[in-house]
């Protein structure tokens, strides 16, 4: 990799096109990194966006080549979103393969307990522990091609073969099931059915639920994309504003 910075006195913003030559290099850089010459500018946003990508990282740090969402990074952002008066709504975009159960449930509980309107959008995949996060918001969307794999909780790595381990996993699974059934319209029975069904995943139990089906089962509210998600979030913000305005007048 070659770099494009060769000026003696470093400017605070080396990438900004200030003169002709440097501007050209800035554009080259942008094409290299983003595949586009310019990115749109916009006004300060009242909606903040949280992306949950890759693996949800828990107590074990994964090697840096993995794309991960670290809960120690996300939780302060959620706290900031709750505290900041300028932020009126939160959009959560998911494309995750799942990961640590405790970390995933922690994020899901944080999102579901935010006082501000929240909308989730599942793009690509919202698998295993991504499911509770997907249902945690006030309203949820799934892209038509997106999938969610529902399967039982399991351990990788060292397994201690005692009955207590099984009971522990069973309890952990109950926490996931109760969270999903509390936060969506799916019944416990149906969710367990999907979780333990045979023949849907090769050599594994569970179900891969695609876009429309997730809505049909009641897990997700609606099939849609970013446009409908932002529209819904704005609606929810307006609704909350009018309600709180009513409270002040009484």
């Amino acid at each position: 990799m070659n770099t494009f910075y060769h000026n003696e006195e470093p400017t605070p913003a080396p990438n900004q096109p200030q003169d002709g030559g440097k501007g050209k290099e800035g554009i080259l850089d942008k094409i290299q990194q983003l595949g586009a010459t310019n990115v749109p500018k916009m006004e300060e946003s009242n909606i903040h966006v949280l992306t949950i990508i890759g693996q949800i990282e828990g107590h074990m740090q994964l090697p840096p080549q993995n794309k991960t969402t670290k809960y120690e990074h996300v939780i302060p952002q959620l706290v900031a979103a709750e505290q900041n008066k300028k932020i009126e709504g939160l959009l959560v975009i998911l494309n995750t393969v799942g990961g640590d159960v405790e970390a995933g449930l922690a994020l899901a509980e944080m999102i579901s307990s935010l006082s501000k309107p929240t909308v989730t959008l599942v793009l690509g995949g919202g698998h295993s522990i991504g499911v509770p996060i997907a249902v945690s918001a006030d309203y949820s969307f799934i892209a038509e091609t997106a999938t969610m794999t529902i399967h039982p909780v399991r351990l990788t790595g060292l397994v201690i073969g005692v009955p207590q381990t099984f009971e522990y996993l069973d309890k952990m699974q109950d926490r996931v099931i109760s969270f999903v059934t509390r936060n969506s319209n799916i019944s416990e029975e149906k969710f367990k059915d999907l979780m333990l069904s045979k023949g849907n995943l090769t050599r594994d139990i569970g179900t891969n639920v695609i876009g429309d089906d997730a809505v049909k089962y009641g897990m997700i509210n609606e099939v849609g994309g970013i446009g409908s998600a932002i529209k819904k979030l704005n609606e929810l913000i307006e609704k909350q504003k009018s309600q709180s305005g009513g409270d002040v007048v009484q």
Partner: protein
Amino acid sequence: MILYTYQPQNLVFPTNDDEYSKQQTLPIPGGSLVVEATNDVQSGANKYRVVRLMSTDPNMYLNSNYQPGSLLDPKFITGGME
């Protein structure tokens, strides 16, 4: 070689410790940046190459200083979620 195992790949082939230290997370106003330390080709000065921006503010992603791959001067990072 085909390895049949129930163990995750990173337990079978552990990553070098220096792979972890390559990347670091720096706090910036409004979020944090994952960066890799690099040296500038011409001047040899220490720079940070941006790997990933972590923020909930969509506007920050439009800041060309924070776009992935851009080089930042260590002095430029003023730190802190203030």
